[in-house]
Each structure stands twice: as C-alpha cells, then as structure tokens.
C-alpha cells in the first residue's frame, strides 16, 4: 500500500515537473456532481372510483407528475490536449417510480368496476459512463464550455422489499383498501446507453471548479420492455388490467433515462 502511495505521489510530482497541457499544467480533475432528473410520469386519475363501460372503455391520462429523481455522480477527467478531455463517470441514484394500476372490484353485464390507485416502486440504479469532452472555441480544457459524448451502462434494481403501497384507497363500497403491491422476484433493468451532453466548468480558484451539465441519453438495450407499450392499442382490451403495472413501469423507465441535469464541484490536480 505504501509503495502504491509513493508511486502515485512520484507520478504526480513528475507530471507537474514539466510543462504540460491542462489547467496550469494540471491534467487530472476529480469531481462530484449532484444529479437531478426531471421525470414526467403519466398516469390516470388517482383516488377516483371508476366504473368503466365495457363498450367504451377509455381511461384518461389526465394527471401528470413532474418528479425530480436525485442521484450522485463521481467523475475523473484527464486532459489529453487543449481541446479534449477523457472522463469516467460513476453514478448511483435512488429511484421512485409511480405506477398506476386498477383493482378489479367486480363487474356487471355492462361494466367493470375498478378502483384506480397510484403506488410507488422504489429502486436503485448504478451507472458508469466513459467518454470525452470537447471544449468550444475560446476555451481550453479542462475549463469552459464543452460538449460531451459518452457510452456507458446503467443497471436499475427494484427489490421486492422496497416496493411499498403509496396509500389507502377507499372504494365505492366504502371498503378500506390496504394493498401491498410487490414485484415478483424483483426487477433488474440493465441497459447500454449513449449520451450527448453540454456543460460548463467554471474555475472558482486554481484548485476548484464549479460544474453544470445536462445530458441526453439513448438507452439501447431492454427494448422489449418498451415495445410492450403499444400506444394505439394500449387502452384496448388486449392489455388486461393485470398488465398495466408492467406496461407503465416500462414506459416511465424509458423516459427517465432520456435527460438529466447535474451540478457539482471538482478539484484540479
């Protein structure tokens, strides 16, 4: 351990001993970013009793949730030349998904009786990205305005234990419902993703910088989840109420991965 420590010190000392690119010759930078992701969750009306006529079954998607998902990121950057910086980013975040389902209460000849309900599914996601930042004209890596391209992988795990009921819902019949929704055997969603982002690193001193960036992600795997969301036929009878959980979960999961915003601080070494 001591040897590794000594070698690391010696490496940094030798790197800074001669003129090199980077901020005042500092090639490495490490940073922490707080991530928040605006997530648009679509769901049907909550806490509302529904009697749906079989012949005109059309639940409305009128309620929207804007939820900020929060996470933490650590990144390491290495300035290769005046315009380019390679970086590795590791992040983890707690996720709360709002899922919508209906509880089948019975039926008559003409209608089904459902009680709609909203509940949270909590999960954790870890991700890593590797890519490069290209600094715009007038700026020299690793500070200034940049665009970045990266590829990486994110793995989201939703455990049984973490899926809890959002609340009690009173049915038309005055029955207190205390539903406990569980995902069978948990759910793991792993996807390979490509990212493009824009950001700025503003030096606050010769050591510290402030960072603000935003990324668009394109998840390339687990497409089969998304395929299940058939917009045209989604509300038709081929998706029975029993499939709604999964369908909505996947839809929201896809939108979650599309966009994020990060704010952070870092140091240049």
């Amino acid at each position, binding site marked *: 351990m001591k040897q590794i420590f000594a070698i690391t010190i010696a490496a940094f000392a030798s790197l800074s001993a001669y003129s090199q690119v980077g*901020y005042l010759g500092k090639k490495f930078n490490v940073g922490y970013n707080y991530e928040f992701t605006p997530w648009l969750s679509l769901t049907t009306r909550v806490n509302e009793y529904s009697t749906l006529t079989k012949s005109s079954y059309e639940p409305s998607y009128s309620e929207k949730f804007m939820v900020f998902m929060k996470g933490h990121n650590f990144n390491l950057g290495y300035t290769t*030349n*005046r*315009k380019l910086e390679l970086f590795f980013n590791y992040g983890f975040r707690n996720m709360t998904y709002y899922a919508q389902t209906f509880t089948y209460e019975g039926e008559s000849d003409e209608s089904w009786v459902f009680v709609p309900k909203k509940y949270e599914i909590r999960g954790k996601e870890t991700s890593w990205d590797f890519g490069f930042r290209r600094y715009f004209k007038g700026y020299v890596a690793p500070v200034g305005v940049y665009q970045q391209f990266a590829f990486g992988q994110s793995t989201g795990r939703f455990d049984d234990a973490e899926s809890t009921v959002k609340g009690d819902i009173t049915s038309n019949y005055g029955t207190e419902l205390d539903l406990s929704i569980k995902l069978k055997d948990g759910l793991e969603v792993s996807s390979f993703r490509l990212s493009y982002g824009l950001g700025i690193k503003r*030096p606050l001193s010769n050591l510290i910088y402030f960072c603000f960036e935003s990324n668009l992600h394109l998840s390339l795997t687990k497409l089969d989840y998304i395929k299940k969301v058939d917009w045209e036929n989604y509300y038709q009878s081929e998706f029975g109420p029993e499939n709604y959980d999964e369908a909505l979960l996947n839809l929201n999961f896809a939108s979650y991965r599309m966009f994020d915003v990060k704010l952070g601080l870092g140091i240049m070494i």
Partner: protein
Amino acid sequence: MKFAFYSVVFFLLVALNVSAQTPCYTPLKCQGEIPEEFRTLTAAKVQKAQAKERKSDRTYTEKKRINEFLLRNNYVIDELLNSGKILFGDSLTSYVNDIASVLLKDDESLRDALRFYVVKSNEVNAFATNQGIIFITVGMIAQVENEAQLAFVLAHEIAHYEKEHSIASILESEKIYNRDRNDKYNGYEDRIRLLSSFSKELELDADSIGYERLIKSGYNPMAASTTMDVLQFAFLPFDDVEFTGSFMELDSLRFPNHLFLDSLAPIPLNSDDFDDSESTHPNISRRRDVLDMRIEKNGGSTNKYFILGKTRFEGLQHSARREMIHLDLVEQQYVDALYNSFVLITKDKEDQFLEESIAKALYGISKYKNGNDFRDIGVGSDDAFSHLQNCYVIFENLEKEQVNLLAIRYLIEVENKYHSPFITMLANDLIKEGIKRNDLTQESFEAGLKKCEEAVQLSKDLKLKEEEEKLKAAEEKNGEKKPAETQDTVVKPLEEETSKYDKLRKEKKKALAVAVDDNTKGSSESTPWDNIFHFQAFAGEGKQAMSIRIDSLKQVVENQNKADEEWVNEVRKRKKFYQRQGYSLGIDKVVFVDPFFFKADERSGLKLEDSEKELMEFKGQIEDCADACNLEHEVIFPKAMSADDMEKYNTMAMMNDWVGEKLSHESNDLDIIPLETEYTAALSDTYGTDYFCYTGVFTAKMRRPGAWGTVIGCIILYPLLPLALVRAFTPLRQTYYYFLLYNVKNGQTKWTLETTMNRSGDNGYVNSLMYDTMHQVKKEEKK
C-alpha cells in the same frame, strides 16, 4: 626615435579626431530615480485628492462633480505617466525645471508643489493638471525661438494650476448644465458656446498672470507676444528651405523637373484670426493683441531672452529637434521627418543621425508606397505648405519601383559611410521587397541601368555634335569651307542604307537623349526618360555591388517564400492537430511589458478602480502561469517598479514606442521593420531573450441584445419563460484576451493570439488561457 615621436603624435591626433567627432544622436531616455508619483497606485491618489475635497466648503453637488472629475482625471494622468511618453531626469526636463525655478524663485511653496515633465510628442503643446504636474512637449521645445518663450509657456501653465482653472471649468460646466436644464430654449450649441466663452476667459487670465510672472523673473516681455507666432506657425517644419531632391547627395542623379510643383501653396500668414466661438482657446490674434497692449502699458525693464544661457538653450533645442525627427519616424510621418532632416542637414553637413533619419524615412516611404498606402503617412501634398509640399509631391509622382530603387541606393550609401548594421538590415529588406513586389531581378536591374547609361551617353554625344556643328557653322561663317566629301561620307551612306525601322529606332533614341538634356534645362513635360532616370543613382561604383546583392538576396527571398509556403501548407494540412496540440515555439524566456487589464460596464461606465485592482492581480497571474510552465520571465510593470528600476522604465518606454509603430504598420497590412528596432535590438542582450510580449484583458458587461424579445416569444412557449427571464435579467459578459509576442532583434511578430469569450474575465478563465498560451510558447517541437 624620430619614428617613435611621429607615431605618438599620429596616434594622439587620431585619438583627438575620434573624440572630436560628433557622437550620433540617440533618443532621449529618463535618468535617475523613478519619481514616486509614477509608482503610486492611482486609487491611492484619488482617495487622497477626494479626502482633501471633502474638507472644502463647496456644496454637495459641486463636491460630487469634482470627485467624479478627480477620479477620471487621476486615471487619465496616470495612464500618461505610465505610458513611457514622459521624460524625467533627462537634460530637457532638467532644463524645463530650471526655467520653472527661475520663474518661481520668489514663491518656494508653489515651486515645491509643482512637477515639470517633458512629453515625447511632436505636437506643440503644454498643459497643467490639478495635481500640480505641468507637461510640455518636445515639439514645443523644438519650435520656440528662445528660453524666454519657453518661460512664458510655463508661466501660463503655472497660472492655470495656481488659479485652479480645471476645477473652475468643472464647476462652470455644472452651472451651465443646470441652467440649460431649466431653460428649454437653451440648446446644446448654446451650452458649448457658454463653456467655450468661460474657457477663453481662463486662457486670457492665464496669459495675463503668466505675463506678470515672466517680466517679474527678468525675461523680455516681448517673448510673450512672439510665443503667439510660435503657436501660429508650429505646424510648419523647422525652416522653409527649397527642396530639390539634393538630399540624395548623388552627383549623378538629377530628378526630372516636372516631378516638382512650379507653384507652391503659400504659408497662410493670417491663420491666427480663426473663428474661436466654439474653441476652448481664444484665437491667437486676440491673445497677441491683449499681450501687445500689456507690453505697451507695462513693458518691464529687461530685455533678456536667455537667463540660463543661449548655448544651453541651443544645445537642448538641437536635441529636441532631433528627438522630434525621431518621433516623426516612429509615428510614420516619414515625409516630415525627411524634410526636417533635410533642413537641418543643410546646416550640419556631416551628421550621422540626420543622414540615417533620411535613410529610414526613405525606407518607410518606399514600404508604404509599395503597399499603396502612401496617403496614410503625413498630411499629404494637399495640406502641406511651401517647400514641404514639393517633398510630398515628388514621392507622390514617382512610381513605387523608382522610390524603391532610390531608397535602396541611399540606404547603401549611408551604410557604406557609417556601417550601421540596422541600416544594412533596412537596405536588405528593401531589396527583398523589390524582388518580391516590384519584380526586381539582376537582369531587369542591369537592363534598366544599360538603357539609362545609353541615354546619358547619347545625350552627351548629341551635345558634342551640336557643339561641333556650332563650331563648323562658325568656321563656315569665317570663310573656311570644309571639304564637301566629308559630309557625304558621314551622312549620305547612313541615310541610304538604313531601313524605316532603323530610322524610327534612332529617332526614339534621339528623343530619349533629348529628354535627358531637356530635363536639366527645366522642361516640365513628362518624357520616356522619367521611367529610367532613377538608374542614374547606380551609375559608377554602386552598380556592381547592387547587382551582387540582388543576386544573393534573391536566393534568400526564394528560400523564405518556400519556407512560408511550406508553413502555410503545414498549418492548412494539420489544422486540427494545431487546434488540439497548439504550437511549439520552444522559447525559454519572455519579457512581459506593460500588462493591460480593463473592465467596463455598459450601464455604469468604466470601472477604473476595479481595473487597477484587477491589473495588479493580472500581473501576479502572468508570473504564476509562467512559473507553472517553467517559462523564464520578467514583468515590466510601472506600478510594481522601485525607484531604482530606471532601466526597466526606459525599456518599457522604448518598447511601447516600438509596439505602437509595429501595430500601426500591421493595421495597414504592411510588413515593415519598426524603426525603433535599432534601439530595441540591444534589449535582447540586456534581458537575455529576443522575445518581448504584450498581453492583456478587456472585459465588459453589457445589455443582452434581443433578450426581451425572447421573453415575449416565450409567452407562447410558457414553460420556457423562467429561462427567458433569467436570460433577460442577466447581462452579457464578454472577455477579450490578447497575447502579442515579438522578436525585438529582427522586428518581426513571432506569434499573435486574440480570443473572445462570452464569459466574465474571472481569474480562472484568464489563467486557463494564459497558461495555455505560455505552454505553447515554452513547448519544444518533438523531433
């Protein structure tokens, strides 16, 4: 023994001769210790002045206006003090101070409060500041006739300080402004007229007080009146001497007469009675009349034009006039410099400085002529008077190839005479310029020369023939007939055997020969001879040397062109590589001169105090960045100098002149060796590097154009409205950073970098850019 005696005598004579030679004039430099006011921070000066003002009995509004004035004024004056344009401790400044001591011998407290400096400017001017600094220009010292006139100018400026005229002007302008605001019928023009009228009163007041002080000091009162003549005719050269082109000092060269004007613009003798209704100063005629009346009324009892001595005045004016020529050259007033040198050289025949100044002026003229920018130098023939007009006209009329060759010839002449390496550098540069831009080759040169020699020879033959014919005619008249067969043998066979074309060719040659002859007789028409007359300059000794030189420099030009082309191709081909990696200049040491940092805000104006503070930090940043990339460096910065850093101060002054000249040429897109290079070249030995750098930052905060339009647009796209509002309320910040690296030895630009970013000039961004720049300067190319 005898041999030894004569040897000793010989060496003594040689030594005496050497020491008796007039040393070549060198530009004026500051001497002694740097005065404290050059080194004190402006903010401290402002604070002191404003604290003093707070104790005054003035109203709140008056104090406010004066404080604003003190702030701006102190920064402007400090900028001048730190520009390197101000002389102190030198012979001229000492002289001016001595005159001031004569004027103020009875007022010690006032003498102690005042500081006198000479400004390196060829304008004829003097001015006083409310801080007690009186500036007088080199141009003024060069143009006055005697010490008493200089004393009157100083006495006038002392009066301005003594009576606090600058503060009075500020208060008066405030009054006029308020009066103007309350009276809707008072327009801008009336306001100007009122201000101008007040200012003129102050000027006449200063004349009056200055006059009293002049006669009290024992100077001839007439000097006050004759100073007005100096002010009136200061725009003219040192003297009005007929300009014939004899400045070339080449016996063989005769300029065609039609190149000169027959009728010259007369000097406007009544220019002193101008309309002064909107001027700050009364017209000269009025000032002269008032002074003449005073002289008549109270003329004093002395008639001394010199108290400190005529010899001292003449010696110093000699320096001032040479300095003025030097300043003219630096400021690209080449024709004026040439004419003034020509005027002085008619008195001092053998003067290395003057001859070299003519050579430098010719170099500049030729370069600007080649770049078709001749109109950009000097006033031009339309605005010049008397014989100076001819000096402009000749260069306007000559073709650029002709000016090029004539300048080369003169430079070589001066080079051979004084062996100055700088003149050799200029001569070589002009020859290269001729090769590059005027198709000058050994062949074209020799062909032109041959044509010229043939024409001259033919002209001589014609003259000889004419004389013979005259002689024959005289003999015939005297009855001594020549044998008839002689005429037949000479004329007839020629006429019979030659073709039509031969005859025409002969006629053409004869016409050329006649033109050579006519030129000396004063013909004012243009002839074919005009195109080749300049080759006369190379007749005789100069021919061979020039031919060899063209040949050797042709190779240099070819190699240079090839290298330039390769470099351009390299940069084009590897554009992305250079964008990523930057350049590798491999320079070990750089001297940073006079760093610059300036902050402005569109809403609240210039941020003078902030700028100075940031400038001090900027100097530290330069040092930190240079240290970070192991670049050896020195920062020459007046506010960080100690009293003993005189050499650094002079370096800054010299470099500021040099870079000013350089940038001026570059604005005309001309590749010219700055003439100051002659003096700056020595700096490379002093500082151990050829590379001097000017770097700076200008950062501004301004309104964001079209921001509110975006807000209105976002009313439709309402989710984006918060962003649009943030944008509308956030000002646009822009920062401009420059880094100019020069080689002072050869006068070339090594590298220039300019970049603008839409960010504030925070230390971090500037550090980033500066380090990157210095890294490229230091980095050596990988082999």
